Every structure is written in C-alpha cells, then in structure tokens.
C-alpha cells in the first residue's frame, strides 16, 4: 500500500522522518517517487493527503484553542458537514480519553497532546495512518490505549505506518517492519520472516571453565565476550556452531555450563540488519 523507491540523497540520520515527510507531501524527493495506495504523492498531493492521517513527532496545536476546536478545524479540510464533524470530533476525543476536557491545549501535558495528535490523525477516517514516534510522551496507560487503537485500526483494514526508535513497541504492534539505514531501505517485510531471516541461526553460548580457555575463532561467530580471567565467555554466532564450540573446550576437559538458543527481539533484528547494511 505504501512504497518509496530510490529514496536517496536524504540529509539526516537514517532517514525515517525524511521518508515520512515525503510520504505526506511536505518535502519532495530529490529523485525517485513515493506512492500511497498507487497514487504518486508529488504528482497528486491533495488526493494523497485526503487518504492519510499524519501525526508528526513534535506534534503541535493552536494553544489558545480547545481540543475540540483544534479537531474541528482539522476536520473542516476534509469537507465534513457540521453535524458529521461534531459527531466525529466527539467520538475521537472519547477514543483518546480527552472527552470532557474543556481547557485550552496550551495547558495540556505532553501526553495529552500526544493523545490529541493521534485523534487528529484519525479525523478523516484515513485509509493510511502515519505515526511518527507515537508513544514518545505517553504514560503506561496512554501506551496501552495507543496499542488498542492501532490494533482496532488494523483490524478494520487501515494501514498504520509507525516510525519509532522504541523497538519493543514496534515489536508489539507491527506485523511488518522496514529498516532504514543511511537513507536506504535495507530490509522490509513480515516481522516474523525478517526475524527468522536475520536471526534464525543465532546461537548464544555461555561457557564457564575451571581454567582459562583459549580464544575460539570461527567465521560464523558474530561476537564473543570473555571474562577478565578468560574462565567464562558469552559467544554469539550466526549459524548453529554450538557443536563445534562445545567440542573445543570439552576436548580439553572443560565443560560448558550452558548452551542456549534465544529468540531474537527487535533490537537484535535491527542491529543485525544495520550491521550488514552499513558494513
């Protein structure tokens, strides 16, 4: 549903915020093109903007207006009639837990503004919702509400694109993951598939020995941490070389204390891809 081709020449960090700004039509790609639902963003910005809901990382509002007024203003751009607009605004405020808050947005906490930002991104009932760091300022209750809302949206068939550096959060709500490094999409696809592709043979071996063990060398070893006295080590390998590793110290009469295969988390996946992508 969303695609970006050849997103080169972007000038900051990994490029996820820049990619999002291109997707919502705020900046133009220097080369290549962005598509949302088959529509090129740069060529048909208004058509695309009608389909998307966007919550920026640094979400901003008109401080001298209430949440209701801010949402009502946003809703006007999508051509909603008065009664429809009122109903939609009330529903969204209830959805994010801000119903009944009559104060002006200038007095809101960061978390409340984040909730309101999420409500505003949904004001046009978009087909695609783009959220940039959506849980950055939320309290635990807010995070739970956010997950519930995102899952509900996904269940209804809405595409939700979440950009986040809180990888545990991404792992909890996303079914597909794209990894950007230095302006390039280095991997994308189903999270489980990516996980298997990146980490399926990852082996973590903990070794304890009575006497210092020799350094183990093998091209499949990704990392190896030895204690100061070299009597214990934590070895991470790409392939399943547990037998080889276990055999080496065993042959010298050293018994490995623990040999375990762990399920990778999002950080392991990202680091694995990023290491390969930047190598």
């Amino acid at each position: 549903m969303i695609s970006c081709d050849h997103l080169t020449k972007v000038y900051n960090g990994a490029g996820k915020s820049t990619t999002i700004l291109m997707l919502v039509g705020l900046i133009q790609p220097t080369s290549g093109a962005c598509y949302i639902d088959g529509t090129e963003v740069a060529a048909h910005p208004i058509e695309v903007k009608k389909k998307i809901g966007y919550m920026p990382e640094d979400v901003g509002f008109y401080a001298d207006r209430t949440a209701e007024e801010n949402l009502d203003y946003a809703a006007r751009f999508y051509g909603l009639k008065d009664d429809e607009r009122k109903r939609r605004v009330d529903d969204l405020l209830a959805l994010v837990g801000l119903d009944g808050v009559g104060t002006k947005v200038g007095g809101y906490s960061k978390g409340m503004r984040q909730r309101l930002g999420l409500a505003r991104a949904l004001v046009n009932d978009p087909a695609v919702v783009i959220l940039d760091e959506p849980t950055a300022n939320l309290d635990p209750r807010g995070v739970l509400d956010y997950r519930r809302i995102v899952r509900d949206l996904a269940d209804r068939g809405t595409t939700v694109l979440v950009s986040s550096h809180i990888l545990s959060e991404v792992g909890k709500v996303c079914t597909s993951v794209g990894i950007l490094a230095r302006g390039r999409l280095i991997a994308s696809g189903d999270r489980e598939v990516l996980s298997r592709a990146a980490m399926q043979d990852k082996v973590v071996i903990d070794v304890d020995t009575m006497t210092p063990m020799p350094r183990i060398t093998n091209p499949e070893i990704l990392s190896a941490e030895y204690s100061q006295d070299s009597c214990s080590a934590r070895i991470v390998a790409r392939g399943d070389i547990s037998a080889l590793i276990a055999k080496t110290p065993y042959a010298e009469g050293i018994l490995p204390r623990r040999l375990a295969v762990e399920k990778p988390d999002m950080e392991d996946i990202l680091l694995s891809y990023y290491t390969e992508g930047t190598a």
Partner: protein
Amino acid sequence: MTATGLRIIAKKEFSDHLRSRRFHLLFAILVIIAAVGMITGIVQYTKDLSDYNSVQMIAQDEDDPTLAGNLAGLKPSILSAYSQMGMLMAGIGVVLGIARGFDLVTREKESKSLKSLLAYPVFRDEVINGKALGGVGAIALAMGVVLVVSVAIMTILGIVPNFDEFVRILVFGGVSFLLVFTFFALALLMSTVSKDSGSALLYSLIVMIVLSSFIPIFAYGPVYSAVFGDTPTQPGMATYSYQQGSSAYMVTTTKVGVQASDAIDPEALKEYERASREYMAQKQAITDLVTLVSPTGNYQAVLGAAAQPAGDNDPGLSSLLGVLACNIIALLAMPAAFFGLAWVRFMREDIR
C-alpha cells in the same frame, strides 16, 4: 482546484485576529484616536466656519464683492478633521499592521502546527494566501469601523458632508487601509524569513523605521543638503523675511526687515534665479522619487491632496489623484511587492 482550504484558513485567521488581545488593544486605540481626532477637527472646523461666516457678513455689510470673492475659495471644510486624523493614523495604523502580521508564520512554526496544517489536503499557497486574506479582512474591518465612527460623530454633531467630501473621505479610508496593509505585508514577509516571532518583530520595526523616518530625513532634511549642496545664495544681499499670521482662512502677509540692496548686478541675479530654479527642480525630483519608496510619504502626499478644502480653484479630486498617480501606484505596489516576496519565500520554505 477549489478554494476550500483558502476559505477555511482565511476564516480561522480572521477569527484569530478578532480574538487577539493585541488586536483589541490596538483597535481600541485606533477608534479612540479617530474619535478624538474627529472631535478636535470638528471643533476647529466649527470655529473656522464661524470666522469665515463673520468675514462674509462683513464683506456683505461693506458691499465689497472683491473681498467676498477672495474669501470664497477658502471656505473651511470638514476634511481638515480627516487631515488631522490621518496624521495620527499614520502612527498607530503602522503599529496595527505590524502587530497583526509579524507572527503569522513564525507562530505556526513555534507551536509546530505548520507541519500538521500542511499535511491537510491544502495547497501551500492557500496557507499563505489564507493568512494574508484573514489579516486583510481584520484590517479592513478596523478601518471600516474607524470610518463609520468618524462619519457617525460628524452626523451626531450636525455636519453632513457633501458628495465631493464623502468621496474624499472614502479616499482617506482607502489610502489609510493601504498604508496599514503595506506594513502588514512587510511584517508577513519578515515572519516568513525569520525563525522566531521576536526576530520578525525586530526586522519589521527596523524596516519600518527606515521607510518612515530615514528616507524622509534624506528627502527633506540636512542629508539632502550634505549630498547635493546648499541652496544657491542670492547675490546683492537683499533679504526678505515674511511673517505670516492666519486666522481661519484669512491670510495676512506682512513684510518685515526689508533691506534694500545698494546695487544688484542684473546678470548675477539672473544667474541666481536660474541656479535656484534648477536646484529646486532637482530637489523636487529627488524628493518625489525618494518619497515613492516611503509608504508614509506617499500616504501623506495623497492624504494632503484628498483632504484639501474644495474651493472654486480646486482642481477636483480626479485631477489631484491624477497628479498623485505615482504615489497611489507606489502605495499599491509596495504591499504587493512585500506580499509577493513573502509568498515566494513561504512556497520555497523547507518545512521539517
């Protein structure tokens, strides 16, 4: 392409202006100044009219049609009140224009709402156009109220302007609006080029001071003499000084301190007159040219002509406006130029 976004933004901006405390304060000052200026002007007008009528009565009593005829063209006009009001408006109106425009874009940047606004289905030009329209609407409303208040005060005090005066009052309203709009557009430009509202306000004030004070100083003051030299000195040491005393529109001129020249060289006098004419013509040309880049200079030139009392020798408003066409075009061109620059800058701005 529909103008829905433009309409929504303009409406919101207009509403923001009307809700703003700054606007309330400046609007109140503007109305008070207009009312005070008008009442003061009417009091002076009533006194002048009374003096004028007294002279007319004397002329009739003495059966001196020459005296009456000479005074006929100097009948006082209520427009003199607008002339006074215009001088006050030039100050507060400029402040109003800058106050309404300097943070239009920077405020959106500071509150980080610009990114969200541009993510709505709206073209970028609709945003800047909508902001300008909202501001223009608020300024037009303020100026309209000022005009209505001034006419209402006149009417309440029993003065009904004739058609010509009414047209001139509308011209006054129009050029006053253009003056305020010029500084509004300037402030909007500064708002697009600045990172924050404080800088935008500072830059606006600096340009305003240059346009309103430095340029007139150059055009009329000692700077001109320093650059282009002093007025040619009259040969023969014949000096004249004049003392004018005026009561109403009756002007008396008395020569005092006359020194007769012993021997004036006619050739030198002729040369002096030629040099003097050239100097004055050059000064006038440069003054006119420099005035064109000063909005307040243009405003005062047009206002001075429009608020002239209409007499038998009056060339008529249309003729006056024809003479002042350059000033009027400059009054229209400057806000257009400021807004054009603001528009281009905003369209090219990198929003992140």
